[in-house]
């Protein structure tokens, strides 16, 4: 009999897949977080913003649906392409439907915008590919940890 292994394996090439250090504020249309980088490539900053927005979508939907990034409509990045130091990450929900959410997301360093863009997310019912029993508690736990200022992997 085949054994079903309820485990998620993600090979991101990184030590941890959560690219957020903290979520400090969450409101009906806003979310604020932080991330410290160590001479990291700019695409990790874009991923951090994508994760921040996705957590806000999950927050809004009570973690009842699978949330995923659908499209980055536009995104500007710093010319030097390297991120170093602590960045404040901000997200604002600009428009939404029942299952799609559009955010203005930005990463600031020292009150200067370093990355900013418009990110489109969608939600879908959990299914056999996106297992509710695994994903829902996982995202709830990570979200709770980030709000407690604990870094999680």
């Amino acid at each position, binding site marked *: 009999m085949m054994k079903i292994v309820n485990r998620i394996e993600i090979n991101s090439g990184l030590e941890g897949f959560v690219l957020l250090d903290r979520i400090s504020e969450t409101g009906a249309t806003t979310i604020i977080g932080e991330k410290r980088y160590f001479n990291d490539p700019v695409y990790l900053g874009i991923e951090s913003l994508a994760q921040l927005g996705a957590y806000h979508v999950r927050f809004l939907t009570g973690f009842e649906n699978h949330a995923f990034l659908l499209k980055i409509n536009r995104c500007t990045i710093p010319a030097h392409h390297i991120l170093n130091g602590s960045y404040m990450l901000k997200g604002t929900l*600009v428009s939404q*439907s029942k*299952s799609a959410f*559009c955010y203005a997301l930005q990463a600031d360093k020292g009150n200067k915008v370093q990355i900013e863009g418009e990110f489109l997310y969608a939600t879908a019912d959990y299914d056999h590919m996106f297992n509710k029993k695994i994903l829902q508690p996982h995202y709830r736990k990570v979200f709770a940890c980030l709000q407690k200022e604990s870094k999680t992997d």
Partner: protein
Amino acid sequence: MDILEEITEILAEILDIENNNISPETYLIRELGAESIDLLELAVALNSRFKIDVNDDEIFLRKLRQYVTEAEQQDKDILQYLAEKLPFLMHKRLEEIIADLEGGPTLRVKDLISYVERQRDGN
């Protein structure tokens, strides 16, 4: 700018097509080739432009065939059942849709207009 002009502008931008390819009778999926990702973009754009709540399932008639099946299984009048489930569509339009089911996805630009009008009126 009226609703049709605004929706035309949004569709042209999302689908990267010319405005003159779009009329109220245009099929979004059959003729314009709109895909699910395009429809999600359209949904948030309509929310932003018209400041209305947008239910993707309703506006894009996603459950249309399910409703038809439900009506048949429950031995209900299909037109009446659809009118209850999709109240933004007029009786005449629902008749068109039922007659057109074999042809593929029935969603037309005029259905979006009807939805926006109804949501704007707060009904």
